[in-house]
């Protein structure tokens, strides 16, 4: 697809997204806002897991860092939420840098377990530090603007998502993106052709964590109540399922996955929290039988002859 055609399609979708909530009620608007949060989470996690092969389970924790940093600053020090969101982004970036450095020599399951431990430790701290975080009761925080307006929140989240996706798109299609994929495919080979593998891995961790922190910060100020549900494994596995089912390692996959699964989750909410279980199972099946997700299936269907001519 040419760049021009792509720009036109993106513009049409964006225009659609701008008018979409106007005819909708409060509840569908809420679902869309949450979906946009998940778009940001899944797309940034995809940068880390899909493009550099670092399957971190600490991504929801980074969103929690962003949300709690901004929330605590607002509640305890009266700092403006917008500045708080920036601070949360910065702290998440720093922690991402540290976590990335810690995991540098690890790959595969070891990295996943280490980040899982990080996420669990953070969760325990948040639940227990009641004086600071209000534990499982949740921290009541001010909104991003004086007057609460769903539609304004929608546009803020949309703008944030568009900004983030633009950065991600440019990154993936730059030299850095090629280096990311080289590292994911084969670290030793990447090193042998001059890729600074350690830098690339840490950079991906830092950028992805900053993005999660940013998304989490905004999300917290939208919900007005920050609970340990944000830095939770439930949320982490949602993000994972959305990315894997949508199509890991592709730009569009996580976006589709985030909308599809979040809307689906709302539809089946009446049956309890089983959707997490169902998504987990579906993600497993997809990862086994269609490793490139729904997007990969669609592409395979579109171009059935894209098979090798082996000489």
């Amino acid at each position, binding site marked *: 697809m040419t760049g021009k055609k792509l720009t036109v399609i993106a513009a049409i979708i964006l225009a659609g997204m701008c008018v979409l909530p106007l005819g909708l009620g409060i509840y569908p608007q809420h679902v869309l806002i949450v979906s946009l949060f998940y778009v940001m989470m899944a797309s940034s996690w995809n940068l880390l897991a899909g493009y550099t092969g670092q399957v971190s389970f600490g991504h929801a924790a980074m969103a929690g860092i962003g949300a709690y940093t901004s929330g605590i600053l607002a509640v305890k020090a009266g700092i403006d939420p917008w500045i708080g969101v920036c601070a949360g982004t910065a702290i998440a970036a720093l922690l991402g840098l540290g976590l990335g450095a810690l995991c540098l020599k690890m790959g595969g399951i070891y990295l996943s377990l280490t980040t899982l431990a990080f996420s669990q430790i953070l969760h325990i701290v948040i639940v227990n530090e009641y004086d600071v975080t209000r534990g499982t009761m949740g921290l009541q925080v001010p909104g991003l603007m004086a007057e609460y307006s769903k539609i304004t929140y929608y546009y803020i989240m949309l703008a944030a998502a568009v900004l983030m996706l633009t950065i991600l798109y440019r990154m993936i299609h730059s*030299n850095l993106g*090629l*280096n990311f*994929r*080289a590292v*994911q*495919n*084969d670290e*030793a*080979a*990447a*090193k*042998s*052709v*001059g*890729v*600074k*593998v*350690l830098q690339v891995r840490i950079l991906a961790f830092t950028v992805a964590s900053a993005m999660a922190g940013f998304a989490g910060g905004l999300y917290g100020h939208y919900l007005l109540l920050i609970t340990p549900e944000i830095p939770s494994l439930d949320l982490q596995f949602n993000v994972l399922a959305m990315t894997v089912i949508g199509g890991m*390692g592709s730009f569009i996959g996580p976006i589709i996955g985030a909308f599809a699964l979040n809307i689906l989750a709302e539809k089946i909410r009446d049956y309890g929290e089983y959707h997490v279980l169902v998504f987990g199972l579906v993600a497993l099946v997809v990862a086994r039988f269609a490793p490139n997700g729904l997007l990969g299936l669609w592409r395979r269907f579109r171009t059935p002859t894209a*098979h*090798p*001519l*082996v*000489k």
Partner: protein
Amino acid sequence: MALLEGRKISKAFGGVQALNQVDFVVEPGTIVGLIGPNGAGKTTLFNAVAGAFKPTSGKVVFDGTDVTGLPANAICRRGMARTFQVTRPFAAMTCLENVMVAAINRHPAKPRSFIETFAREKLSFVGLAEMEGFEARHLNVIQKKRLEMARAIATEPKLLMLDEVLGGLNTQEIGQAVEFIRSLRDRLGLTVLWIEHVMGAVMKAAERVIVLDQGQVLMAGTPAEVVADPRVIHAYLGE
């Protein structure tokens, strides 16, 4: 001055002494064969020289500077490139992208159009031009070896280290491959250090041959000297 010099390189894996005080030189502009029976330590020597791991002791001097223990990417930037015995292409990337990764790290400031043209040149040099859009995992072993060579050449090295690039070829193809390896030096001006099991090919293309056996240099000399040496015959065939 030698382009590459190994000084008393040793490498132990636990109790196994894979390399023991290996001394060798590679003069610029030459094709040097590195031979030896299985388990002699040839690939270990490659890895120790190219920075895949650090030698236990000893020194690697490349192009006048000590590069011992530098990471592989830093050594690559100084002008040393390699292929792998068991091929390691970027499997889920296209052939063109595989070579582009090498190109962007050699020419980080160049525009994408330059990088693509540059990478295509390297692909055609190894005869993979028509495969550029295919993911590397679809290639057969011989094509993967060629892809790795294209990738290595795209780093614009002074020294190219090839690890068994002829495995699986028939006699006629080996003849072509020998021509190809000569062209690396004659057309691209590369110095080549080349591990190979196909003895006939090494003897035809290389000017010097280093023989490793049980982690030590058994001898080094011209191909004629090497094949005539009783120690070499003994190492390969036994008593």
